[in-house]
């Protein structure tokens, strides 16, 4: 008895990982292959977002609430650039320029554009820390939402954009759900590799040192400002990639998907999964998406409150984690 308790305590991370991944796969497969593919795609996209965000929150120690904005900038850029000129928009709403780029051509533009936006924003946010940083980045998310909602000639405001192209290479257009899953998983692996290389490089080590004591690391000759800025921009670019994938998946975007409160959900992916752990973000995304999907199968839950029940559970999860496990499920950094 005592021994098994000790085993559990010493290997808690492994146990949690196995339980979550095993439970997730069992649950998804029990709902059918199609469900598994669609849910897996969404998990992949949120995992990409979470991994990128972990660079800022977990490794640099800055609680950014701005990433919903970068997610949105990426999604909107792809949406605007790939708008299919052949689809006639309804008469009542504004006509936006139809460029009709292929998705894969729009992707790098979206990423670079988001990087530039992040760089400009980063010059300002670099000066803040802790709670001031968190709350001012929330302001960025608000401003981004304002742009999505009010820049009618480009974003069509509250009506959203409905003519987003799916990714395609030559004759292979990724129309089937499983094909999209392949693309998302490909990008997930690429992002994981890039981020793994970054966090295990000298750069990543300096980022963690900045998190621990910014003033001290400057004494040893590192310009913390540049390091923070670069980490921030890379993270924003990854968020843009996730946004572009999301836009390609649902083929429709509107500003309500990018309200700042959604940013809290994304932050909770990182915190729940584990701070300063790339794998943790994948776990966090799994928990996060399955919580939403799983709510529909809870017996006795009144119809229409699944979304709210998820919010409540996420909130409780955050409180419990802060009390007992401030590094998240498999994290390496305690808040």
């Amino acid at each position, binding site marked *: 008895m005592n021994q098994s308790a000790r085993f559990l305590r010493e290997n808690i991370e492994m146990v949690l990982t196995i339980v979550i991944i095993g439970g997730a796969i069992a649950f998804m497969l029990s709902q059918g292959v199609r469900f598994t593919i669609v849910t897996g795609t969404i998990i992949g996209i949120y995992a990409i977002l979470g991994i990128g965000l972990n660079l800022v929150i977990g490794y640099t120690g800055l609680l950014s609430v701005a990433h919903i904005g970068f997610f949105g900038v990426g999604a909107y850029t792809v949406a605007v650039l790939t708008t299919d000129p052949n689809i006639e928009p309804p008469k009542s709403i504004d006509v936006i320029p139809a460029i009709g780029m292929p998705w894969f051509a729009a992707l790098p533009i979206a990423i670079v554009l988001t990087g530039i936006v992040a760089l400009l924003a980063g010059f300002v946010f670099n000066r803040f820390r802790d709670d001031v940083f968190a709350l001012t980045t929330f302001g960025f998310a608000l401003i981004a939402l304002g742009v999505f909602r009010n820049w009618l000639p480009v974003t069509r405001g509250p009506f959203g954009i409905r003519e987003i192209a799916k990714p395609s290479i030559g004759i292979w257009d990724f129309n089937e759900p499983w094909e999209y899953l392949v693309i998302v998983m490909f990008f997930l692996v690429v992002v994981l590799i890039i981020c793994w290389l*970054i966090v295990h490089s000298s750069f990543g080590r300096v980022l963690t040192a900045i998190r621990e004591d910014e003033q*001290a*690391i400057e004494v040893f*000759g590192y310009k913390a400002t540049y*390091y923070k800025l670069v980490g921030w921009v890379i993270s924003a670019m990854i968020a843009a990639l996730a946004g572009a994938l999301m836009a390609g998946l649902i083929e429709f975007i509107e500003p309500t998907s990018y309200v700042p409160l959604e940013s809290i959900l994304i932050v909770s992916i990182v915190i729940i999964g584990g701070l300063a752990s790339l794998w943790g973000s994948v776990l966090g995304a799994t928990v996060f998406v399955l919580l939403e999907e799983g709510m529909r199968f809870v017996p006795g839950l009144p119809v229409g409150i699944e979304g709210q029940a998820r919010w409540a559970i996420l909130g409780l999860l955050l409180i419990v984690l802060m009390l007992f496990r401030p590094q998240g499920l498999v994290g*390496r950094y305690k808040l």
Partner: protein
Amino acid sequence: MTTSETQAPSALQTDKVSKHFGAVRAVDELSIAIPSTGMTSIVGPNGSGKSTLVNLLSGTLPLDGGLVIIDGKGLRVVHAFETPDHGLTRTFQEVRLFDQITVWDNIMVVLTSRPWLPALFERAKPDYKQKAEEILKKVGMWEKRGALAQNLSYGQRKLLEIGRAMAMEVKVYLFDEPFAGLFPQMLERVKDLMKEMRDQGHTIVFIEHNMDIVRELSDHIFVLDSGTLLAEGEVEDVLNRPEVIEAYLGD
């Protein structure tokens, strides 16, 4: 020490540097020249501006006025991130390690490329690893290399911080109270490390309250009081001056 050594070119000089916090003049138009060889100690009663001076020299605090002359260059603004280029590094009075990373990474972090671009995908090079191993063995922390810095004892933290500074391999080392709160055994170890560095030709500057240690180690001494220079010179000579004794007893 002999006079020829005290007249040697100074490694670090200040020209009327000032720092005030509100109405308090922590360092007030202070001009000193730290000799480039041997060990120099800075002593003075509490609140005399010793730590502030070290913070000013290392760029941890911005200067309110005056000039820091280091490496032959006069600086009105000392940027912390440029001090290693000028050949200077320091330790902190309240040990400032990177708590939530390992002992190994605490040393490795100061060995790598400084600009961000080369650092971005840089793997740990063999010579970095070799250097880190050498340092960790020297300060006796090699067995502890996998532990998080926050889990070390106070003495170990102090040693690790000195090790981190040694890894920088610069000319001038500023130690802010390196002996405070150490057990005798650890204290000897730190002394030995500092003597070794002196023998290798580094400039060692340290702040200390214990006069026995000051007498034993330092070749040159600066006595500060209320942010101004009270006395300087050879240790025995300075410590026997009436104004120095008064400053200490009066405190």
